[in-house]
């Protein structure tokens, strides 16, 4: 090893040659970008092996190749042909926490059977129908039904098997898509704020059913709205249609991707790979975006009004309506199904997060400026862009909302303030047109994630530990002594805090040997914080948190099941009594069937469950932020990899 002898007080390790033979020098393997290389090496390794499809064997092999990150077991799926190479939602590695959370979500929303099938698919990768039925000991019927439900909601995809078009169909579940279920309330609420009650109901219906045709949605929503209106008024279909079209125009709803026929020529929907007529379905399955008609409304004329449901012959009219639907009313948009475009919602959430961050850091006017910039670049920015298209100050000035009339020099001052801000939300990319400005999306996300990490450390370990954490984030590598000095914390306490953070894996220890034999007395030990792995760690903690919250809620409900049932029965009795016009004495008599302590218990139970539910929603906000950050770095690395190394 060609290194200079240590001199004096040189503490930096820059003098060490970068290409040292010792693999211990430098960041540990699992931080070095190993995770970026995993898909390709996974593909290379598994591509050549024709292992039998036993889940246990797969686990063992996967563990042998991968690293165990913080005692989370990372499970891998196979990657054979390109059907299995799906990027995006069908990520190949899911952690145990993710699978557990997915299982709980599936159970809450779709029942136990779907949960069993779903978790089996998530753990085991792509499998065909018979395997699933045999390994889960479920009758074939139920397996088929569950798979239908999963495919309907987009949580599962099917494709031709490993051995080519002739082999049985294989199904693959998507962890990410199932985790979206946690975010449904947020999507619906956003639709409500943007497009009112009609928009809200449309999105809710489509989310609940997986995917629906436009005519179906319009009718159902009109019926629901009519139900809530006063007597004699009903909702016009045209209003619902206009709300629907607005949602489609702004890309919140999109068409379902057409299904590639299995075994026949792939439909020409993937622009990347030109499909030849003889090619089997080996091109990647078409995503919704690849369909050129993705956002085109079908030409249907829906004329009518919502039907009000009478409570007495409820089921009759429902069945009658359904019968009518099945029989004659084909509105001309059969086969065109719409689903919710989650990515567009995520863009919206991300913009909201950036704007509120700017508002809290600077002031309202700057946040309005950033909001204007983001609004102007909504359609021109791709989902994975690192920054928006450059906008000139003139354009921004013209597009400011009318109630924020600030003068041009003031705008320029604000823009320069934004550019100089250390959070780096806005960057300047040129001087033409009064200055070209971009919103640094990726950097904004990274800064938001960093703020989240710092806030977590602060809330869990106190502000002095947070100071140490921030210090390490900025200064990268520091020795014990330097940490004490820079953070201005007495040695003993600093040591304590560092070790607590170390035991929680928020801080890592990096060894820099001075001699080839790694003698511990002659090695530097530096503390370091890496933002990306720490963000991943916290994300897993969040998943675990939500899973724990759900389990606790289920436990609480189960504990008080008897009481809940009793209260439900009494409510039903009360409702029926009121409908049939009973006297107040009868009502109070029925109400008194629940004693006061029971009422208290019920109240406490309701309070707990509400708190747990609300917490789930709010943890999901953190989950969203961390997920967006991690996803943005993934695309950045892929872009860098593609650009830099043609070999890959």
């Amino acid at each position: 090893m060609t290194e200079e002898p240590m001199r004096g007080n040189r503490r930096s390790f820059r003098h060490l040659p970068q290409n040292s033979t010792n693999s211990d020098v430098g960041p540990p393997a699992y931080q070095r970008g190993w995770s970026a290389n995993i898909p390709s090496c996974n593909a290379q390794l598994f591509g050549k092996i024709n292992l039998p499809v036993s889940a246990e064997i797969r686990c063992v092999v996967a563990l042998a190749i991968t690293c165990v990150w913080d005692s989370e077991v990372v499970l891998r799926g196979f990657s054979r042909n390109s059907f299995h190479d799906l990027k995006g939602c069908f990520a190949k590695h899911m952690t145990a926490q993710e699978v557990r959370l997915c299982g709980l979500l599936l159970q809450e929303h779709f029942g136990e059977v779907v949960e069993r099938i779903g978790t089996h698919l998530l753990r085991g990768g792509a499998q065909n129908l018979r395997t699933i039925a045999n390994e889960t000991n479920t009758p074939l019927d139920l397996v088929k039904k569950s798979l239908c439900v999963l495919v309907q909601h987009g949580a599962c995809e099917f494709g031709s098997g490993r051995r080519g078009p002739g082999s049985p169909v294989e199904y693959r579940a998507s962890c990410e898509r199932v985790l979206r279920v946690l975010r449904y309330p947020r999507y619906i609420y956003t639709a409500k704020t943007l497009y009112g009650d009609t928009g809200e109901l449309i999105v809710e219906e489509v989310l609940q059913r997986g995917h629906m045709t436009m005519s179906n949605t319009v009718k159902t929503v009109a019926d629901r709205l009519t139900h809530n209106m006063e007597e004699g008024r009903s909702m016009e279909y045209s209003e619902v249609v206009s709300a629907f079209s607005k949602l489609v125009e702004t890309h919140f709803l999109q068409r379902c991707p057409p299904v590639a026929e299995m075994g026949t020529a792939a439909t020409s929907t993937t622009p990347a790979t030109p499909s030849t007529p003889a090619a089997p379905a080996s091109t990647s399955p078409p995503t919704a975006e690849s369909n050129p008609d993705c956002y085109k409304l079908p030409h249907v004329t829906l004329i009518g009004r919502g039907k009000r449901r009478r409570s007495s012959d409820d089921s009759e009219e429902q069945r009658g309506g359904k019968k009518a639907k099945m029989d004659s009313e084909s509105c001309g948009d059969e086969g065109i199904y719409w689903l919710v475009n989650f990515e567009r919602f995520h863009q919206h959430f991300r913009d909201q997060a950036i704007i509120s961050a700017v508002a809290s850091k600077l002031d309202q006017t700057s946040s309005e400026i950033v909001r204007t910039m983001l609004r102007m670049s909504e359609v021109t920015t791709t989902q994975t862009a690192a920054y928006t298209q450059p906008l000139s100050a003139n354009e921004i000035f013209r597009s400011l909302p009318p109630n924020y009339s600030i003068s041009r020099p003031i705008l320029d001052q604000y823009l320069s303030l934004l550019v100089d801000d250390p959070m780096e939300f806005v960057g300047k990319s040129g001087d033409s047109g009064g200055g070209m400005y971009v919103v640094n999306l990726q950097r904004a996300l990274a800064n938001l994630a960093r703020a989240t990490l710092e806030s977590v450390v602060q809330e869990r370990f106190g502000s002095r530990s947070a100071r140490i954490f921030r210090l390490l984030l900025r200064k990268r590598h520091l020795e014990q002594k330097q940490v004490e000095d820079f953070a201005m914390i007495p040695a003993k306490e600093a040591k304590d805090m560092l070790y607590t953070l170390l035991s929680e894996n928020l801080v890592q220890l990096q060894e820099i040997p001075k001699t080839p034999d790694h003698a511990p007395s002659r090695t530097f030990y530096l503390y370091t914080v890496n933002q990306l792995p720490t963000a991943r760690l916290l994300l897993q903690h969040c998943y675990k948190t939500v899973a724990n919250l759900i389990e606790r809620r289920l436990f609480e409900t189960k504990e008080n099941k008897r009481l809940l049932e009793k209260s439900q029965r009494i409510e039903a009795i009360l409702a029926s009594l009121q409908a049939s016009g009973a006297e107040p004495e009868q009502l109070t008599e029925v109400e008194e069937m629940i004693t006061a302590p029971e009422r208290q218990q019920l109240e406490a139970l309701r309070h707990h469950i509400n708190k747990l539910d609300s917490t789930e929603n709010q943890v999901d906000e953190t989950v969203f932020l961390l997920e967006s950050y991690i996803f943005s770095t993934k695309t950045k690395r892929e872009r860098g990899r593609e650009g830099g190394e043609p070999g890959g």
Partner: protein
Amino acid sequence: MLRKQRVSFSNNAGLKKIQNRNSGTRNKDTVIACWKQQPTHSADMAGGKGRGIAAFSFNIESLGLSRGNMPQTREGPNKLYPDVEFKPVPLKEGEDEDYMLALKQEIRGTMRLLPHNIKPLAGKGDVERYKERYQRQNMLDEEWTPDWQLFPKELMPQKKKLNVKPVGAKKKPIKVSSKEKADVLSKLDELEKKDVKSDEEKEEKKTTEEGEEEEIEGEELEEEELEEENDYIASYFEDGDDFGAGSDENMDEGATY
């Protein structure tokens, strides 16, 4: 000579002490010196002070520890619920959060009632419970037919008959006529079917498990449909067929197998 050689590896300070102490007989010296040297051997490699005292192989100071204040040793596994020093931040409150909370609970409730929610096959009790009737009323759109264009063919429920119609169409005639729910008649029908089915099963060559499951399923579906008023049901569920086998099938199914 031998001793000198060994001595050359050890610390000088240690040797002097030994020499001072063991000024007695030679024999004892060698023995004791040998014994005493061994700790110093390893002590040197352990950093120089040694002689049986706990020594670390690296520089303790660099980690900020010192002899005086070492961290406490662990006495066992961590507590299951460790003490929390800092209380968590209270939840955000506001009408946004309240609305989303209400939405979440509503979604959960509604999705339980949708046909997407697949119930495991519960063994049917011999008497239909009273509450089941009301629970069934709550189910929204009890049946759901996926659009088979978007689904692989193998997920369609298999039919023995030639015309493979989707599930929903089959159910329509049954549903329409099942507006009148006669519980007594339904019970009679089910008992009757059970008899017929048990005959069939003996003749079928399918695995008993699959047959049973489908039979129970068939019964469950029948129950969901709320039987018609006549004793002669238009469609029976054959073993091996899941849903509404041909409506034009007559009831004496014992003959076909």
